[in-house]
C-alpha cells in the first residue's frame, strides 16, 4: 500500500537524520588539552594533542617554576638577584643553569654587537616599564646607569661555575631571554615525555613542536601592532620551529602624552624609535629568537635584516610604522598577509 510505503520512508528519513546527528556528535580528531599558568610575568600556555595525562602539565610547569625562581630579576631570593647583589665584589658561584643562561646571553650580546645586551639591568630598573611605577628617568641618572651597561664586563670562571660582574651596580637582566630559554626547556621536556606535537606559548614566545594534527604546518598568527590582542597582521606556517615577536605595543606607559615602550636602546638608554613596530624571528631555538628579535628591533630595518641574513636557519618578519612588512629571503611562501593595508616587501 502506498501509505505504508510513504510511512516507512518517513520513518527511515527520521532515523537516518538522528543517526547522522549522533555521528556528528562524536568523532573528535585528536583531542586537544591546554593548561595555562602565570610565569615570567606573563601567561604561559601549553597545548598538547592526543593522550596528555595531567601529570605532564604538572611536570612541565613545575620545571618552569624552578627556572623562574632562578632567573627572576625581581625576586630577591633568586640566584640572579644574588649574583647582581655581588656586582663589583668578586666572583659568585651560581647554579649551573644560571651560569649557562648568562653565558648564552653574553654570547648573543656579542653576536649582535651589543644591540641586545643582558647587562641592561640598571637602565631597565630606572624606567621600570611594566613595573608598578614607570617614569621617564632623570638624564644624569640615565647616563650613570648606561655607563654600567657593558657585556664585556661579565667574566666567567668555568671552574666552580662562578661569574664576576666587574663594576659595582652592574645588573644582569635576563628578561630578554628567560622566556625563550624556558620555552626551549619546556619543548625539550615535552619531547622527552613522548609528545610529537605541542604548542608552547610563553607570553608570545612560541615553540611549535611537530605539525598540526592533520600533518600540515602550524599556522602562527603575528600580532597586529595597532589592534587589540588576537588580531593578526599575517600568518607564518612553521613545522618544529619557534616564533618570537618583539613589539613596541607589548609593554609601555605614557607620560606627558608621549608613549614609552619597553625595548630600550643600549646606547642611548631610551626606548628605540626607528620606525620599527615589531620584529618576529622564526628559527630553531627560542632563546636565540628572543635575543635576536630584540637586537633586530634595536638595530633597525637595514642593519637588522643584514644581521639576520648572516645567520643560517633564521628568518624574520619586520613590521614598520609606515605600514610595510619586510621579510627575510628564506621565508618564501610561509608568510601570508592578513591585513591587506600593509605592503609586503621581500
Amino acid at each position, binding site marked *: 500500500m502506498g*501509505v505504508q510505503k510513504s510511512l516507512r520512508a*518517513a520513518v527511515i528519513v527520521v532515523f537516518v537524520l538522528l543517526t547522522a546527528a549522533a555521528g556528528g556528535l562524536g568523532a573528535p580528531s585528536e583531542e586537544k588539552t591546554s593548561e595555562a599558568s*602565570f610565569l615570567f*610575568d606573563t601567561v604561559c600556555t601549553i597545548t598538547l594533542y592526543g593522550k596528555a595525562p595531567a601529570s605532564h602539565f604538572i611536570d612541565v610547569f613545575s620545571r618552569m617554576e624552578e627556572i623562574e625562581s632562578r632567573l627572576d630579576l625581581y625576586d630577591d631570593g633568586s640566584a640572579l638577584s644574588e649574583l647582581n647583589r655581588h656586582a663589583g665584589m668578586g666572583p659568585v658561584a651560581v647554579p649551573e643553569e644560571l651560569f649557562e643562561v648568562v653565558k648564552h646571553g653574553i654570547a648573543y650580546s656579542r653576536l649582535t654587537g651589543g644591540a641586545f645586551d643582558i647587562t641592561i639591568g640598571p637602565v631597565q630598573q630606572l624606567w621600570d616599564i611594566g613595573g608598578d611605577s614607570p617614569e621617564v628617568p632623570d638624564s644624569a641618572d640615565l647616563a650613570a646607569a648606561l655607563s654600567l651597561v657593558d657585556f664585556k664586563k661579565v667574566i666567567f670562571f668555568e671552574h666552580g661555575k662562578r661569574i664576576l660582574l666587574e663594576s659595582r651596580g652592574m645588573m644582569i637582566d635576563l628578561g630578554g631571554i628567560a622566556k625563550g630559554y624556558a620555552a626551549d626547556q619546556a619543548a625539550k621536556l615535552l619531547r622527552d615525555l613522548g609528545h610529537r606535537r605541542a604548542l608552547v606559548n610563553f607570553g608570545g614566545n612560541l615553540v*611549535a613542536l611537530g605539525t598540526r594534527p592533520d600533518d600540515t604546518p602550524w599556522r602562527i598568527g*603575528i*600580532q597586529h601592532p595597532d589592534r587589540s590582542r588576537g588580531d*593578526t597582521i599575517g600568518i607564518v606556517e612553521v613545522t618544529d620551529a619557534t616564533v618570537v615577536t618583539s613589539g613596541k605595543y607589548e609593554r609601555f606607559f605614557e607620560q606627558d602624552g608621549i608613549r614609552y615602550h619597553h625595548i630600550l636602546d643600549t646606547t642611548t638608554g631610551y626606548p628605540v624609535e626607528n620606525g620599527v613596530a615589531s620584529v618576529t624571528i622564526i628559527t630553531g631555538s627560542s632563546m636565540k629568537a628572543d635575543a635576536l628579535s630584540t637586537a633586530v628591533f634595536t638595530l633597525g630595518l637595514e642593519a637588522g635584516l643584514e644581521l639576520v641574513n648572516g645567520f643560517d636557519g633564521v628568518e624574520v618578519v619586520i613590521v614598520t610604522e609606515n605600514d610595510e612588512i619586510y621579510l627575510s629571503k628564506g621565508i618564501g611562501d610561509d608568510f601570508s598577509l592578513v591585513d591587506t593595508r600593509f605592503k609586503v616587501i621581500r
Partner: protein
Amino acid sequence: MLKLPRLRPFDYIAAAFAVALIAAAAVSAYSSGSEASRLKVQTAGGEFVYDLRSDATLDFDGPIGITRIEIKDGTARVLSSPCRQQICVNSGALDSGGDWTACLPNRVFLEVTGADETEVDALSY
C-alpha cells in the same frame, strides 16, 4: 486490523514540516559549529567556567582586589580591575575560541574556549 486512511495533501505538508523541524533542531543542537563557547577564568582562588551565552557580571578576588568581568551577548570583557596598567580592561571583548586576556597583578586569567573561530593555532606577540 487497522484500516488505513487515504492520506491527503496537508498530511504530507505536516509530516514534511515536522521532518524539517526535526532536522533543523538536530542541526542546531548537534552540529560541531554550535559547540558552546565558554569562558574559563583562572584566579588565585581556583578555576571557574561560564557559558558565554548566559549574560552575567562576575567578581573575582585576587591578591590586590576585585576584578569584575562581564559576559554579554556571547562576549566577555574585563569591566574593572584594581591593577594600575589596565591592560586587561583595554584589551576589550573576547568572543572566539582561543581569545584571552589576563590581569597579571591580580592573577586573573580569562580565556574563551570552544569553537575556534580564529584560523591560527597560536599567536606570537
